[in-house]
């Protein structure tokens, strides 16, 4: 177990070191930075959905909340360290409260989807309506649909004049993603992660075993929101402005598509899906022949039809069959139906 764990860490470090060296040779670090940030956002949903069975239609809400928290506190403080921390904590606490309400209330998955969707919509509408000067937190005016520009961007902790930007900022974001990825790996290997997967598979049975399903789902939901919040803060620093579009439903839908295309139930899939599709969208954005929403829709439909498990699991299967790493073939389905009552 611990040997496999250290093997996992080594592979992660080698692969990411290679990518961090190699990719800037092909793509500008400015574009890569946002791909890395989206990768982290994809991972946040991939964690709670793929391993906890929680389908959240409002992951963008936590992303936006992280970005806004950063912008607002950065303006007021003028230094970036505390704002970065708050940008993780505020969405996490918000998600813990929202999650507790939903999971202790034993809402079904459909209502969970509806509520997370509605919360995102409310935040979007609210942020759009804050154009007036009366909407200000400290020195930070919320600015309605124009958003908040001109906040202190990331600096070396303790030195507000030492900005971290350009190539360096890319390396910081990439490193952050690697660290989050390793933390997620560790979490999934821990008892907490294995229990979360058990809950994904059968909530009733986990309850019958004595696990407090509501508490554990709430916790996982909050962890996902914390990661999304961190991604949001990094995004705010990258764009140097936050706008209500961060909360848009389109953004939420895109995160879900990233996970499906990349591969649910894997750690790597949602990151690949996010970065890949975001890059594709970026390329498509440079031409005007074809509408890029149409292409995104088409890709989703093709994946659902032909690669329903997503890219990463499909590649894994392919690699395994090439290397001859034969997996034991599953036995034919011999299960008979039990009497139901």
């Amino acid at each position, binding site marked *: 177990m611990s040997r496999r764990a250290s093997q996992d860490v080594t592979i992660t470090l080698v692969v990411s070191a290679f990518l961090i060296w190699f990719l800037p040779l092909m793509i500008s670090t400015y574009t890569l930075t946002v791909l890395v940030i989206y990768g982290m956002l994809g991972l946040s949903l991939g964690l709670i959905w793929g391993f906890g069975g929680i389908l959240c239609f409002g992951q963008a809400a936590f992303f936006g909340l992280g970005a806004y928290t950063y912008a607002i506190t950065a303006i007021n403080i003028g230094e970036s360290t505390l704002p970065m921390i708050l940008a993780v904590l505020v969405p996490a606490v918000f998600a813990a409260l929202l999650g507790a309400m939903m999971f202790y209330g034993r809402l079904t998955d459909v209502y969970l989807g509806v509520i997370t969707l509605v919360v995102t919509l409310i935040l979007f509408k609210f942020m759009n309506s804050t154009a007036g000067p009366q909407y200000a937190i400290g020195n930070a005016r919320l600015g309605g649909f124009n958003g908040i520009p001109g906040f202190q961007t990331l600096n070396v902790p303790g030195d507000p004049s030492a900005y971290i930007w350009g190539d360096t900022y890319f390396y910081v974001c990439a490193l952050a993603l690697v660290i989050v990825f390793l933390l997620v790996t560790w979490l999934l290997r821990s008892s907490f992660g294995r229990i979360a997967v*058990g809950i994904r598979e059968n909530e*009733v*049975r*986990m309850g*019958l*075993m*004595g*696990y407090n399903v509501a508490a554990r789902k709430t916790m996982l939901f909050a962890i996902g929101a914390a990661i999304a919040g961190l991604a949001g803060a990094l995004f705010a620093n990258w764009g140097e402005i936050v706008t209500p579009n961060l909360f848009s439903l389109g953004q939420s839908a895109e995160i879900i598509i990233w996970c499906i295309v990349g591969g649910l139930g894997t750690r790597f899939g949602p990151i690949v899906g996010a970065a890949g599709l975001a890059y594709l969208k970026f390329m498509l954005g440079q031409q005007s022949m074809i509408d890029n929403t149409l292409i995104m829709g088409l890709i989703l439909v093709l994946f659902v039809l032909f690669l329903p498990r997503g890219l990463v699991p499909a590649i894994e299967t392919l690699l395994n069959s090439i290397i001859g790493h034969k997996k034991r073939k*599953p036995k034919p389905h*011999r299960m008979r139906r039990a009497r139901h009552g």
Partner: protein
Amino acid sequence: MVETVLETSGLTMRFGGVIASDNVNFKLQARELRCLIGPNGAGKSTFFKCVTGLLKPTEGHVYMRGQEVTGWQTHQIASLGVGIKTQTPNVMDALSVHENIWLAARRFYSIVEARERADEIIERLALGAIARAQMGQLAHGERQRVELGIVAVANPWLVLLDEPAAGMSAQDVDRMTDIIHQLTRFAAVVIVEHDMQFIRSIAQTVTVFHQGAVLMEDSVENVMSDPQVRAVYLGKKA
């Protein structure tokens, strides 16, 4: 004095107009083995669900080891040391047999102990050959056996089994009987069953449910030869 581990008083469950559980007074002693029988729809499963918190009874009280647990949630009751197998199989299909049993053990034991206990139970239930197989690929009898392992690995003092032998082969049933006898060394066990052969082979006292209420409670022989029981239950089966 023998300790009473499970007691219900006036337990009643109504679904709209249907009275699925009707004023049930039930008492079970430590390490007792009890069978519940009754025709389909007699309210056996509903009684279990009320006791285990899967349903909230309309009226009445549930006590475990003297403590009132009425209205508690399932995970709270299970945490006391109560092992539960529902009538419909409840397992994690995408996970391995070992992982299923390990998860049950982990609730009460450290990571290392949980693995040891899981290995031990897997050996005891002769599941070694399929320990790494996915639950979803197993035959029905094997799944039932694993679910019994899930219950047993947590070392419960009260075990509630809703039709554990349903749909099993004779050989599987024999093995099940052994396992249940092992459980009774430390736990009181309540079993809902339809299979008379099986009940004869294990039970001492039998409680008969009929239309939600307790019709009678007596030794196997007396219950089997009771004309009223035969009329509502055995007669129907023959």
